[in-house]
């Protein structure tokens, strides 16, 4: 069960990170600064709990507020530029934050040892959770609770007038300005909110990993941060959650058996996901018929039941299945995913039949499109009308 608690914590923190990017992406600005804000929240809250003995909740809030304040300060000049220039400016900011923590050393004596961040070595003693007797389950519940609160907050923001204004700015900022929206105020506020959210997420991150260093907060993490809302879809907070589960749960953990090739598949799946659902998972989901939606939900529930059964009934089921799997290197959890696909297809045999039709049709389409890309016209033969 430890595995699932760990995964829940990871998903929770990354969803918060994704939501931070979600807010600023709505205004049409692609920000690579989220990892920097995460870092600020992580270090500041870590210092407060480990070095000044604060309770976790106020430390979270102060971490978030610090990040928000810095976001406001950086936002004013940064938001004067748009598009690509803003991306580069935020990359530079993120790197600057990382380099700052790389050079930052501040320690206090606690009992027999020195506690605090030491430049390149990082900050090793963020032991609030273990020191106060929090179990894995406690941590997972806490992180998920904070995630739920953040999701609720952003959901509410979406529904409010503020959300409409943010999206109006994102869609056509000239028109927004012409109907009286103060662009700078809105963009800076959105940036500050996203900074706050990332700061809170960072605080959670540093506490559940207990050891952070500057390398954790680089451009790669910033890319993940924007990947979640883009892959998930910018219309709905649940899209971001789905994307986090997809990317972190499915790719990072579920495909661990692929070993080193995992990252490669990750890159490949991102490319495929973007070609298939350019507007995000949510838009694809909305277009799914009830037929398919039922299958997705049903399959997911079935998989969760299988996994819980494996955990609760102890090792016997797992041992049995893994005995069957022998030396293939696969695990019980991977079988759960396979079962998911089987259930989806087999719910009604029509599902399988439609798959057998979809594959050749898909291949034909691919071939046509490839021919097109070479400059030939694809409409050589009259097509059969279905």
């Amino acid at each position, binding site marked *: 069960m430890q595995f699932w608690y760990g995964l829940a914590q990871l998903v929770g923190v990354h969803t918060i990170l994704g939501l931070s990017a979600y807010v600023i992406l709505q205004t049409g600005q692609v920000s690579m600064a989220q990892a920097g804000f995460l870092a600020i929240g992580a270090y500041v809250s870590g210092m407060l709990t480990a070095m000044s003995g604060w309770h976790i909740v106020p430390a979270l809030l102060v971490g978030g507020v610090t990040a928000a304040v810095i976001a406001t300060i950086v936002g004013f000049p940064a938001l004067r530029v748009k598009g690509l220039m803003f991306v580069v400016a935020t990359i530079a900011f993120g790197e600057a934050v990382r380099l700052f923590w790389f050079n930052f050393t501040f320690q206090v004596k606690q009992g027999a040892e020195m506690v605090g961040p030491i430049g390149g070595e990082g900050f090793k003693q963020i032991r609030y959770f273990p020191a106060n007797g929090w179990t894995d389950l406690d941590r997972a519940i806490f992180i998920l609770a904070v995630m739920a609160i953040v999701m609720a907050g952003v959901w509410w923001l979406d529904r409010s007038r503020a959300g409409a204004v943010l999206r109006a700015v994102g869609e056509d900022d000239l028109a927004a300005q012409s109907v009286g929206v103060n*662009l700078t105020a809105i963009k800076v506020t959105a940036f500050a909110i996203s900074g706050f959210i990332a700061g809170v997420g960072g605080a959670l991150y540093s506490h559940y990993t207990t050891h952070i260093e500057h390398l954790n907060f680089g451009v790669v993490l910033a890319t993940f941060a924007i990947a979640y809302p883009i892959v998930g879809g910018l219309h709905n907070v649940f899209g971001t959650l789905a994307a986090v589960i997809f990317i972190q749960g499915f790719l990072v953990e579920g495909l661990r058996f692929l070993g080193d090739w995992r990252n490669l598949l990750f890159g490949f799946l991102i*490319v495929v996901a973007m070609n298939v659902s350019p507007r995000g998972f949510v838009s694809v989901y909305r277009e799914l018929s009830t037929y398919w939606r039922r299958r997705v939900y049903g399959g997911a529930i079935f998989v969760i039941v299988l996994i819980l059964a494996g955990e609760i009934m102890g090792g016997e089921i797992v041992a049995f299945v893994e005995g069957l799997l022998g030396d293939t290197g696969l695990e019980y959890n991977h079988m759960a995913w396979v079962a998911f696909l089987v259930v989806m297809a087999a719910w009604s045999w029509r599902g399988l039949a439609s798959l057998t039709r979809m594959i050749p049709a898909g291949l034909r389409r691919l071939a046509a499109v490839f021919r097109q*890309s070479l400059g030939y016209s694809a409409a050589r033969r009259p097509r059969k009308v279905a």
Partner: protein
Amino acid sequence: MFGDVSLLDLLQAITDGLLFGATYAIIGTGFALIFGVMHKINLAYAATSIAGAYVSLAFASLIPLPAIVVFLIAALASGAVGYLIYLTCFRFIPSASPLATLMATVGMLILIDEVIVHETNGMPQPYPALFDNVMIEIGNYGLRGDLLFIFGLSIVATVALVLFLYRTRLGVATRAVAQQPVAAQLCGISVPRTNGMTFIMSGLLGGLAGAMTGAAVGTLSPLLTLPITIKGLIVTVIGGLGSIPGAIIAGLLVGMFENVALALRDVQERDLYVMLLLFLFLAVRPRGIFGKHSTRD
């Protein structure tokens, strides 16, 4: 601040930086070319150039080849990779979804990097350098032969690009599609084919830049991708989005500035100073050196 760095050392640093900056100039030009035509950024570009360099290395380890051929192979391989990126990230994703394109290029970046890591088992590979034992000396001041070669090659490549854009039909078609894709189609220009060519062209440039970087640094490693991407983006922004002359000047500027910062301070702080240069430009002249005039924000 100057510490124990003499004026001669400074001059040396400036020259070396300027010459090496030619690689940044070429990368920036590649970015600018794609941005100018597609109005989107190709984040996988650095991967394209590194991949080409690796392919050329693979060939070079099989058959002994003159170094200039190695460079050419790198360029051609990167051209092919560039076209692949066009197909996977730009061709089929609707132009109304720039974020999807951005993410797809990130995916390709990861994919290409991983392939490289797998094929080389993560070990950095040495890259053949040209004229590295040549040094034009003027007293204590030297002009490194390999850097001079890189600089010269960049000039040739840039001239070739300019000739292509302004003297050939395909070049005119590229510029037409960049300015008015719909009208270009009405004139019979195949937009997918032209854009594909643009990516191939920028890939050729990228491959040259990758080979040049490998030659100047002496080793190739997939870890180079990230710093090259960031430098390329910084150069594009400083030079002005989509402007090729701007990218060239900015590349040389950044190369020189970076090396001077390295000489005066140490390695850790070098990147910080480049960031500061970027911030300076963003604050004072956001549209870059040759950026187009934009309406009031």
